[in-house]
């Protein structure tokens, strides 16, 4: 965001080199804008920061009034408790299998579908696209019983595949790739076609690499959705050995007596892989500078 502002505001100040006064007033404007963007970003982070700091408070301090942002007594007892009470390794492994498999499948399927919607014209494609959009329009819970029957008949009940398969096709992912590919110049694929490349080769070697930023975005979010999925794994999984992290995490939550500090700490631990993934993928989104490979 800040780099974007820097990019757009750099131009004029470079242009007006001989008019010093105008230049300084402009850089002052830039400073004010950048400062307020930073303030906004901090305000936006505030709830997440509180969440993090609260996990270091002892249970007695969490809801004591008046509220404090920083813990009076720093403690990691919540973390120790959560770690000991919990077979993290097993649940993390299960969740990782589900999240990674679903993410790879989702990105590939969405990219192929979105590419077809963006670059091919056929009278029924538009209606097919509306059909895919419709799948987002029913509340998920309404479709669940029917999805469950399908999973049951396929014999996938109580298996990780039963969580992976229904989540592969997402309208959001298809839509993301469709909109992105519609901004990629069609000349690229035409040039490749003239050079004798097949449709699959065009997709895999030219179009898919160009869509790296959107693939990374979808990968991050697909991983995030599957990592935090709760209801569907709860319904499909029966054997505690197959539980995903979120399903297992809820076992911390008692009906009336909630151990908040353990819950907060366990939640923070379960967020760590998400943060690592984001850091790993963010260069793909922020540094990729491809300009579509065309000189225009």
């Amino acid at each position, binding site marked *: 965001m800040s780099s974007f502002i820097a990019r757009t505001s750099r131009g004029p100040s470079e242009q007006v080199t001989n008019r010093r006064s105008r230049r300084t007033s402009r850089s002052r404007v830039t400073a004010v804008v950048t400062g307020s963007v930073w303030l906004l970003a901090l305000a936006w982070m505030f709830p997440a920061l509180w969440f993090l700091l609260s996990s270091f408070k002892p249970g007695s301090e969490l809801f004591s009034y008046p509220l404090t942002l920083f813990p009076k007594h720093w403690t990691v007892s919540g973390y120790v408790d959560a770690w000991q009470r919990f077979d993290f390794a097993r649940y993390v492994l299960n969740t990782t299998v589900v999240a990674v498999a679903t993410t790879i499948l989702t990105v590939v399927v969405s990219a192929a579908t979105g590419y077809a919607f963006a670059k091919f014209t056929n009278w029924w494609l538009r209606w097919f696209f509306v059909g895919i959009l419709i799948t987002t329009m*029913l509340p998920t819970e309404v479709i669940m019983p029917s999805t469950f029957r399908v999973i*049951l008949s396929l014999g996938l009940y109580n298996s990780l595949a039963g969580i992976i398969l229904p989540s592969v096709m997402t309208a959001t992912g298809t839509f993301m790739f469709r909109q992105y590919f519609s901004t990629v110049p069609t000349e690229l694929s035409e040039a490749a076609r003239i050079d004798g490349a097949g449709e699959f080769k065009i997709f895999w070697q030219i179009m898919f690499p160009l869509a790296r*930023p959107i693939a990374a975005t979808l990968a991050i979010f697909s991983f995030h959705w599957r990592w935090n999925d709760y209801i569907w794994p*709860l*319904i499909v999984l*029966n054997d505690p050995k197959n539980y995903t992290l979120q399903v297992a995490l809820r076992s911390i939550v008692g009906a009336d007596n909630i151990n908040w500090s353990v819950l*907060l700490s366990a939640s923070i631990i379960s967020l760590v892989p998400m943060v690592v993934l984001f850091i790993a993928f963010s260069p793909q989104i922020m540094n990729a500078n491809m300009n579509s490979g065309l000189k225009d």
Partner: protein
Amino acid sequence: MDHGATLSPETELEGLTSQEAALRLKAEGPNELPAAIKRSLAQRSWDVIREPMLLLLLVAGVVNFLLSKVGVAPVSWQTDSNLSLATVVVAAVWGSLAFNMLLFMAALRNIPRSYYEAAEIDGASGWRQFWSISLPLLRPTSFMVVLLSSIGAMKEFALVQALNGGGPGNTNYLMVQYIYHTGFELNKVGYASAASFILMLMLLVIALIQVRIDRRTELG
């Protein structure tokens, strides 16, 4: 205490623990699925502890605390129907910002640098470059964000349920709250399914209108 209202989500959580729910599901078998879904929906308000939106409520509590310090009457976030709707709106924007921002960032990278360079040579200001280059070229992404967000907002459930359950009373019920209420609390499952289908048709109309507008601007 009013802050307490925001700080005691226990009232929301009379549901069973996940293990109990799963064990029940095991005992009752898949035929009892609607009941199992109802139970897990009660649990779903829990997702909010994970999405730190609950902390937004804490922030609301802090605002009240600060107001009381300077001698102003606390804001009734939960009992004023307009304010509680505003809380939902702010929380929804807060929660969806990251996703939409990443979409726009990816799309911004795809705009050829040369456009900006040409505009700079022509002496266009930063704002002018944004309005005349970035924004029009981001149109496919903006279209998608508007369409997906409006569909998502129309069927928002977990967030509303966790923040105030469509309250106070039923003043801020969204369609899905109504469906949940009739289907699972009044046990009129058929009626609720019909209502869901109506919701789908409404969303379809909204989507078709947006697709039409998008296509029109594409040609013009």
